[in-house]
């Protein structure tokens, strides 16, 4: 490899253009990664073109026009292998790992050290893999199967893969969406470590605080064009947001005055092993109640138990004051409760079906006329409404398949699907995870509107800011128990955290 020119930037994108079937997704993109070891943040709304740009850099897609310069020399990757060899590694949001194989096998799928006469040497592979894993401080045997590892460790393996390919530039696409707080901390310290050892990085994220604390420079992309690139010292959250959405957001979290009325759903003394312990609460029509807790506190488990996905050992569930003996998802849907799971991409979308079909799926019952024929006009009307209200970016709702949408738009489709049913009780689990600022605002606004129309909403989230901004009251869970409830006037991050950690430390002390 040639010696880099002393003053040439590590990576430079110049006037990059790309269109898909006539729609221009990237317009004259300019981006610079100035020096070895620098970390460039890249922020922008869903569908702004971040992933397309990265895929071009990684050789997965080909550009229409423009230049890529690596250390000042032109670089034209024709395939992912070209990019690998040039030292560019992409860490996709959906990790590119094969769960049926070991860590070492995953690291060396495109060529393994110690291979002789075409035969792999597991001994050398494992030894090399162990070295790379140690370099990022992971103490897992390289022969471990991927499916036995947590999401956090999987992410680390993906980084190890980049290192084993001698990557000089690593691109992270939303690396923290499925990580716990601790895993996230580990990831950040590794990123800082890599930066010190001279590896340059591009860090794509919706979590602006992370970008502010990790990166030296930030570039903002909107509708396929770079709105600006500047040092972190000249940036702040508000500035980034207004650049991303192209207008000033006067309010990030819209709170609406509502009139909570009768109790719609109540739960008494719900128990399920160690995951749920004597949980009781009630949910009123016209309110948004938050449910906060740290990873593993039992929030999603509570929702799943109520919804009948997981069995209950003890306890009562009352819907409109009538006991529900054996809750099942289909019973709830028929009776007006909707539940958006945290894995909505996997559980909530028919990927090979059109946007429209996905949107109307949950409300087909209501659109049925005599003899069960579906009212196609109503279908049109409802799906148009949802697309407009949620600002879903689709070029043809009847022809574009759900899997062709960008990640954020897929999530909007799932949410839109349930919004259309106007549920009486609505349980949303992390509805804004991985969604950009603009879409978040839209989701909050819709939850508010639903609540004002009389829905009872349980809003599960691990982001304190949004719960504080949107909810009427917040319940806090910790190790399967509800440890407290705060009213709007008493909201504060400290109080929430104290409740969320309290019994954990308590239990910890008891265990010692």
């Amino acid at each position, binding site marked *: 490899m040639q010696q880099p020119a002393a003053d040439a930037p590590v990576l430079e994108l110049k006037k990059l253009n790309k269109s898909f079937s006539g729609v221009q997704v990237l317009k004259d993109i300019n981006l610079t990664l100035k020096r070895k070891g620098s970390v460039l943040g890249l922020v922008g709304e869903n569908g702004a073109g971040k992933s397309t740009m990265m895929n071009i850099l990684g*050789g*997965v897609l080909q550009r229409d026009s423009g230049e890529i310069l690596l250390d000042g020399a032109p670089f034209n990757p024709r*395939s*992912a*292998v070209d990019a*690998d060899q040039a030292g560019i590694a992409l860490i*996709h949001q*959906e990790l*590119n*790992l*094969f*769960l*049926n*194989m070991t860590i070492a*096998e995953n690291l060396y*799928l*495109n*060529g*393994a050290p110690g*291979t002789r006469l*075409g*035969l*792999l040497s597991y001994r050398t592979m494992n030894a090399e893999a162990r070295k790379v894993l140690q370099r990022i401080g992971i103490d897992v045997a390289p022969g471990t199967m991927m*499916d036995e590892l947590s999401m956090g460790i999987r992410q680390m393996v993906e980084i190890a893969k980049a290192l084993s390919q001698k990557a000089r530039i690593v691109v992270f696409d939303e690396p923290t969406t499925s990580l716990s707080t601790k895993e996230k901390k580990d990831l950040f310290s590794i990123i800082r470590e890599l930066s010190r050892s001279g590896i340059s990085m591009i860090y794509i994220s919706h979590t602006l605080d992370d970008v502010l604390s990790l990166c030296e420079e930030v570039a903002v992309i909107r509708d396929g064009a770079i709105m600006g690139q500047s040092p972190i010292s000249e940036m702040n959250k508000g500035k980034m947001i207004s650049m991303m959405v192209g207008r000033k957001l006067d309010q990030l979290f819209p709170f609406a005055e509502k009139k909570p009325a009768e109790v719609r759903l109540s739960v008494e003394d719900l128990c399920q*092993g*160690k995951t749920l312990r004597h949980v009781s609460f009630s949910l009123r029509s016209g309110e948004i109640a938050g449910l906060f807790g740290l990873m593993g506190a039992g929030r999603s488990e509570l929702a799943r138990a109520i919804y009948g996905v997981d069995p209950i050992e003890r306890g009562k569930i009352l819907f409109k004051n009538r006991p529900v003996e054996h809750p099942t998802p289909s019973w709830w849907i028929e009776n007006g409760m909707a539940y958006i799971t945290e894995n909505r991409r996997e559980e909530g979308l028919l990927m090979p079906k059109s946007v429209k079909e996905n949107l109307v799926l949950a409300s087909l019952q209501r659109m049925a006329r005599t003899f069960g024929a579906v009212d196609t006009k109503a279908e049109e009307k409802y799906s148009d409404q949802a697309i407009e209200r949620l600002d879903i970016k689709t070029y043809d709702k009847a022809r574009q398949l759900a899997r062709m949408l960008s990640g954020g738009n897929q999530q909007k489709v799932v949410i839109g699907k349930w919004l259309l049913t106007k549920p009486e009780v609505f349980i949303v689990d992390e509805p804004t995870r991985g969604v950009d600022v603009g879409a978040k605002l839209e989701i909050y606004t819709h939850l508010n509107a639903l609540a004002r129309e009389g829905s009872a909403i349980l809003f599960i989230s691990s982001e304190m800011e949004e719960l504080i901004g949107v909810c009427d009251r917040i319940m806090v869970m910790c190790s399967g128990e509800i440890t407290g409830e705060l009213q709007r006037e008493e909201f504060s991050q400290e109080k929430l955290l104290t409740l969320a950690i309290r019994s954990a430390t308590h239990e910890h002390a008891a265990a010692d």
Partner: protein
Amino acid sequence: MSTLRLTRESISTSFYKYGLFIVFIALVMTFSVFNRNFLSGANASNLLRQTASTGIAAAGLVFVLVSGGIDISMGSTIFLSSVIVTTLANQGMGVPGAFVVALACGMLVGIINGFFVSVLRVVPLIVTLATLYVVRGVALALTGTQSLFFFNKVADFVAYTSLFGVVPVVVLIMAITLFLVQVVLSRTLFGRQLFAIGNNANGARVMGIKVRRNIFLTYVISGALAGLAGLVSGAQVGAITPTFAEGQEFIIITAAILGGVSLFGGKGSAFPGAFVGVLIVMCIENGLVMAGANMYFYTIVRGVVIFFAVMIDCMRNKGELR
């Protein structure tokens, strides 16, 4: 609670891991209760010779299944290969020629399957369903729907010779095939990449693995080994009737799945996996013969075995997808 769940999980995983061997041993024990001769050395050797053709074909199928495809044309490929080899051998072709011809005509079918699946991207089930019929039709045209008789020096060498008087040639062919296939699957980059493709084809493509080329090769290999299986079973049976090896593909597929090769891709081995699967299937058939079971009963048992093999495979994968 968590420790309890752990043990329950480990029990079920170890059942999935070793269950195959447990089933096999249970079968052997059951049949030997019905017939003392079942456990005799003669019957064991007989059983191994019976597994040869299916074992070779199943080893080839493992490539296709691991990468997430399916090949149901194998029975017809076996038929075509045995027809061509028999005809040429009856005209004086020697032993080395027979092997080359068998592999080549299987490969030809494999190339056709591979072309449609990987280049034109037609669903593998449909492509190989089509070749299942077309290939059998071609072979029938070649024979004029007459039976062929395979009694000559090639058949003698393949089916009735034992090396050093102990190792039958057919068993040796199967052993070499299984060994080579397993080495390619587990010790070469090509083999490992197939597992990656079977697990997540799109991810493999993004990583720069040549997905289409590799998938093409899996069909060529499975075709070639079906061709080899045609030579072996043709020589063993001696008479190539118009229905020769009809339905054989399902026995091969059942055996492979029973041996832990997943229909969903990404999992399995030729040895011990598919081989033990073949042993189990053959054991059942052999045991039924020795127990003097009614002919109709075979078909029912085959159906039940297919069902259970696929059911276990589905259960295993469900646990993982969650």
